[in-house]
């Protein structure tokens, strides 16, 4: 095998979106019969790399060479014709059609001007049998689990002629048996010479199934490694952009030593809180005046935990108490009534209301808490808005500006202002500094420490580990949808977080 040309080569691929270099001269290579992981945190460029390969986006420069021939897929329909198929986490099939139809829709075998359904069903059953799956192909697709739906998607891809199969986070919602089945199929395809690009947030799965790993960070190639020769700690360090050797020379003093070690008392406590399919049951407590970090790689369960705590996803297990009193939080309104606030990582879709003004966005949560009739007067609203615009340095000509017109950093500040205006007891911040400039970042970090100084509880999630280390006085570490450990005070360092992730739950 080694002497053959690689199946796929991508050379110096660049893709720029307005304001973002999503891919900056990235090289990639995939061999015949290889399972190849692409790893990286938020904004690394994984998705863009896949989109360029599958024709969803067209790259600005660089070359894609498939079996020695340059290709340039321009639409999502062209790539499958070239032999490149993708199976997404959210299966892109039609739930209302039968299994067999999903494999053949758009290219049904015709006979005498009619679709030959017998042929469709027979060939579908065969295609699935090649994946060692036997099921009733005439049943609706959504009567089967997501795992099976993925198998159907793979069968469709292979039937269209796949040389390369891209599996984009296929295992996110699968249980152990289902993952094992998927891996069996992947190994089978691998032995048939198909190249598989595997994207996953589950670190252990990378080690279980892949041959090589390509690591991206901020749109640039970090490197391509043999899986066997790259240990977990190194992988994590490369993903989050840390130089491991620097750590080993001596751990720098982290700022967290200055944060109060003794907390004034537990504000929030949850035991065995969890939601099937998104986060395994975990215990957590947050003290007054404490900045609690939820650390872990992207997709580790850190965001899912925050959403369950805030009641966005109603938990299906666990007990929660606030200030020692047992409470039930089933929806965001419950949490807000108790004095929680939540800044989502999806600022545009789950945070700001783009069509409303800064003033309206800022008073929204407070007004929601006060109810319909206790309407803040225009003057009160303006005072509140003015206060926070000044306090958070929101750059805008007027508080009557639509929030949709602001920059990302200023939108984030408006969102923070919305919750600060409610005087929250517990503020949950999911990636509050993502996609905003350095000045704004520092301001947000300062604000987090300030809040804890005022005795508020803060729950912080950030992909930037140094930011977490700087701000948090305690840290829960997540991996593969489990909480695997907790670090406090002096234990908190970037190296320790990485070691915990690398070591836990093997």
């Amino acid at each position, binding site marked *: 095998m080694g002497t053959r040309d690689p199946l796929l080569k991508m050379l110096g691929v660049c*893709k720029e*979106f*307005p*304001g*973002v270099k*999503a891919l900056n001269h990235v090289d990639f290579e995939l061999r015949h019969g290889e399972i190849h992981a692409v790893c990286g945190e*938020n*904004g690394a*460029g994984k*998705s*863009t790399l896949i989109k360029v390969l599958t024709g969803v986006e067209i790259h600005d420069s660089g070359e894609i060479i498939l079996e020695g021939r340059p290709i340039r897929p321009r639409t999502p329909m062209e790539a499958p014709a070239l032999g490149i198929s993708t199976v997404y986490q959210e299966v892109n099939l039609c739930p209302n059609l039968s299994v067999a139809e999903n494999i053949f829709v758009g290219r049904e075998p015709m006979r005498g001007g009619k679709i030959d359904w017998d042929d469709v069903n027979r060939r579908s059953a065969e295609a699935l049998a090649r994946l060692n799956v036997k099921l009733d192909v005439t049943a609706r697709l959504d009567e089967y689990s997501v795992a099976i739906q993925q198998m159907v998607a793979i069968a469709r891809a292979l039937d269209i002629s796949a040389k390369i199969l891209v599996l984009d986070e296929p295992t996110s919602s699968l249980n152990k048996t289902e993952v094992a089945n998927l891996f069996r199929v992947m190994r089978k395809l691998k032995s048939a010479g198909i190249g598989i690009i595997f994207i996953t947030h589950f670190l252990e799965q990378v080690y279980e199934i892949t041959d090589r790993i390509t690591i991206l960070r901020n749109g640039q190639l970090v490197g391509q490694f043999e899986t066997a020769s790259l240990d977990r700690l190194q992988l994590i360090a490369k993903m989050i952009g840390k130089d491991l050797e620097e750590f080993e020379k001596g751990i720098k003093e982290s700022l967290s030593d200055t944060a109060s070690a003794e907390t004034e008392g537990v504000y929030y406590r949850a035991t065995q809180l969890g939601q099937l399919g998104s986060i395994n049951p975990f215990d957590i407590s947050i003290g007054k005046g404490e900045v609690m970090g939820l650390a872990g790689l992207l997709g580790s369960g850190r965001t899912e935990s925050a959403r369950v705590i*805030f009641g*966005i996803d109603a938990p299906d297990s666990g007990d929660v108490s606030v200030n020692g009193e047992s409470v039930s939080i089933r*929806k*965001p*309104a419950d*949490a*807000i*009534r108790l004095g929680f606030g*939540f800044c*989502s990582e999806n600022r*545009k*879709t*789950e*945070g*700001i*209301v*783009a*069509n*409303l003004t800064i003033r*309206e966005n800022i*008073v*929204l*949560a407070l*007004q*929601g*808490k*006060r*109810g*319909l*009739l*206790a*309407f*803040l007067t225009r003057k009160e609203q*303006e005072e509140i808005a003015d206060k926070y615009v000044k306090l958070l340095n929101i750059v805008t*000509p*007027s*508080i*009557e500006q*639509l929030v*949709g*017109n602001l920059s*990302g950093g200023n939108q984030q500040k408006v969102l923070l202002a*919305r919750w600060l205006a409610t005087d929250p007891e517990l503020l949950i911040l999911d990636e509050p500094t993502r*996609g905003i400039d350095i000045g704004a970042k520092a301001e947000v970090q300062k604000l987090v420490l300030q809040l804890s100084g005022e005795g508020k509880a803060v729950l912080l999630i950030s992909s930037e580990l140094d930011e977490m280390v700087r701000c948090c006085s305690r840290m829960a570490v997540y991996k593969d949808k489990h909480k695997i450990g907790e670090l406090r005070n002096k234990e908190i360092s970037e190296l320790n977080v990485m070691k915990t992730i690398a070591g836990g739950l093997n």
Partner: protein
Amino acid sequence: MDARKKLDKRLIDRQLFWPLFALVVLLTFDFFYIKGFFHIEIIDGHLYGSLIDIVNRATPLMFMAIGMTLVIASGGIDISVGSVLAISGAITAIMIGGDMVFVDGVPKYAAHNPMSVAILVALIASVVSGLWNGLLIAKLGVNAMVGTLILLVAGRGIAQLIVNGNVITVYYEPFFYIGSGFFLGLPFSIYLVAAFLALVMWLVKKTAFGLFLESIGSNRVSSRFTGLDVQTVTWACYAISGLCAGIAGIIIASEVKSADANSAGLFIELDAILSVVLGGNSMAGGRFSIIGSVIGALVVQTLTTTIYAIGVPPEVTMVVKALVVIVIYLVQSQMGKTSLKAAGGATALKAKEAKA
């Protein structure tokens, strides 16, 4: 502070500019082509003339436009308003009816039931209709068009049942005052609209209802995450829309002194939607202007009156109205594209995709 007020004012002006402009264009046309259009005279202390007539005739539509504005702002639609209007008219007419009785030897008409009771029952029925729509849409999550379709189909049948398939004529003088009476020289129904408009404006501007509604219509998910009661607010919009259709039904029944379950409010849902769209409101929901919709309703009525006046078959108005909706829609979608670009929305969206 001054600059802020100015910016605020400019936004309002821009939204109201087009409906006012359309109104002026139509009236200018009428001024030149229809003799005596602007002529207003005083007979028995009442003002008469085409302009007064337009405003008077537009009152039912204004009510429905107010309700429809709220529903559309919530991101929905209510196509059952015509049927609710028919139900309300039927209830009022059948309950008031009118019998001839002799009082001191003089024939007089008396109501079956007190007028206030009849109106109250009609209004309650209308609100219940709205609540039913809200139940399907806000609570069960049925698509708004589909949810209100049920009442659209059933409503006229119910109205027909109430009047037993007949056109019910009302013989009761005081009832006519609602739709054709005059107060201080002006048609009484204008005062009704003014009062209701004031009430709704109070709800929208002096309570948090308007803020919540605009937030929910713009971004449901964010609104839920901010703790707003999305369901109740949406529900309320449909209830108000039902109430508005009910009031319109009473006014129309009073104006024509009868209830015809078959033709009352037929096709009026498009007029209501047209008024809202003409008022500068987006069909996508979110930001809204009730005043704009009321002006929109005036434009629609002026258009109808104009077409009548120049002797074109009245059914042609339907074609014109539909074409106007299509054109406004096309313009809105074009403007939506450009304004999104201007706001950097497209840029930010792409950047987000790149990251995801």
